[in-house]
């Protein structure tokens, strides 16, 4: 059975990779199988975890949680979109979800991604921690702090469009765009690594698990 599974997986892997040559029926078959299985898997998972696991067990428990009925009602209201004559009802749960999520995210993002990030950018350029002698700083930390402070400042200058990018201001904006480009470059490098890792994983399966050529 395991050998059969490996052969099926190899057939599907090669089918997907065959798209690199050109679009073909083999690829289409593999793609359709993937989409179908994914949809089925998610449906079953969410049914057993959400509807059966959380909702049904929650309201039939010895100590029932009737608040779950509110969520279930909102869920049913969302599905009324399928009935055109009363489809407007679906806007109410949608408004609730959008409002609640926006409120939740606003606080989280403001705290974690704004306040703490701004705080960590405000640092002594010479790398030493507050309260410690200036010359205790390492060269690595000092250069790192200067790059972060300078990069943040010039990056912000680049996005300031109320003044023409000329002279010293233009120079700072140019450094800012270089900083942003270097960041994108690092991100691209990591993305290449990530995508290659997936290919390496598949190739190891093909040449190792399936063909048995790798020890």
């Amino acid at each position, binding site marked *: 059975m395991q050998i059969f599974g490996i052969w099926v997986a190899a057939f599907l892997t*090669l089918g997907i990779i*065959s798209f*690199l*040559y*050109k679009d*073909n029926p*083999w690829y289409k078959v593999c793609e359709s199988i993937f989409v179908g299985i994914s949809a089925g*898997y*998610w449906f079953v*998972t*969410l049914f057993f*975890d*959400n509807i059966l*696991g*959380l909702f049904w*067990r929650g309201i039939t428990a010895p100590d029932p949680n009737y608040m779950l009925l509110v969520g279930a009602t909102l869920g049913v209201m969302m599905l009324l979109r399928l009935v055109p004559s009363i489809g407007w009802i679906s806007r109410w749960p949608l408004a609730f979800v959008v409002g609640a999520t926006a409120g*939740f995210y606003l606080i*989280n*993002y403001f*705290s*974690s*991604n704004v306040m*703490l*990030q701004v*705080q*960590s950018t405000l640092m002594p350029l010479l790398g030493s921690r507050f309260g410690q002698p200036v010359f205790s700083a390492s060269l690595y930390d000092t250069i790192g702090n200067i790059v*972060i402070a300078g990069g943040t400042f010039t990056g912000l200058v680049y996005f300031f469009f109320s003044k023409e990018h000329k002279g010293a201001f233009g120079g700072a904006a140019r450094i800012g765009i270089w900083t942003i480009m270097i*960041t994108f470059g*690092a*991100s691209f*490098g*990591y*993305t*290449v*690594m*990530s995508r*290659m*890792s*997936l*290919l*390496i*994983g*598949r*190739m*190891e399966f093909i*040449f*190792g698990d*399936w*063909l*048995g*050529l*790798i*020890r």
Partner: protein
Amino acid sequence: MKKDFLIYGILLAVVLILYFLAPKPVNFSTTVSYIIIGLIVLSLVFVFIRTINGHFVGRRIVFLFVGIAVVLPFFMKVSQPIRVSPEVQTVYDSVARLKPGSKVLASFDYDPASAPELQPMAESFFRLCLERNLKIIIMGLWPQGPQQAEMALQIALADSLIVKKNLQRGVDYVNLGFQTGNEFVIQRMGADFRTMFSRDTRGIPYDSIPLLRDVRNFSNIDYSFNLSAGYPGTVEWVQVAVDRYGLKMGTGNTGVQATGMYPYLRAGQLKGLLGGLSGAAEFERATGKIGTATFYMLPQSFSHVVVIAFIIIGNAAFFLGEKRKEEKEKEKKQ
């Protein structure tokens, strides 16, 4: 159409030859490995020269080169130095400093698609925790996460040093499974784990699991490790569990996500980061147990060299194309 069938036929023949006739396993000697590297470099130089002469290569040639660069290093005997970066060392140190019996929460927020990058991290992390007699609590915000965790756990438990410890499920480690609800699960866990995980994956009630007897919420967790491939993942853990409840957390991310995590690391919100496959390989080196990630790093490096070479070739083609356009326009004007 005929050409397509011919190509598929050749592919099938190659596969059958490799399956039935090729010696197994295939290993190139060091000399052969360097000869192959030299041939690849020469081919790239040839492509570069052709590009300069105006003969541009098609995308399939690029795919072929990347494929060769990924596959051939599997059979080569070439070693590559791996240096442990400070962010990886921080994860190791954070775990190493924990006292035996400390409780570690591991959240698996990825699926098999990201396994080549994250699974080696999971295996190394579990092995390190179990070697140091730490108690592991596993959960997942992605449906297939806890299954991935189970696979990594079985590999760690099979380690000769760990087998001797005779570790027990429910006492030394527990898998609470998947819970739907994304960041709201983390939010509820801040108050009480039981509200989100009433049973473990075997169906045993939370209160009957010895390991969880004293675990009510994040305040009872000594260190947390998140393996993340997207949403929900590290960002949500940082925003809710770290910044709101003060959980001490390290993370292992796919390469795509890693650059986005460095600001959290710099701000002290994360205690360590394993970024992509290189992070996994560095962590293997830090733990002293060489595994899959280190094995994958040679194909990774080769493929990066090929990608960089084709970026140079592509740029050469672009600038030459621009130059030729200008020359043609000048000729037209004359």
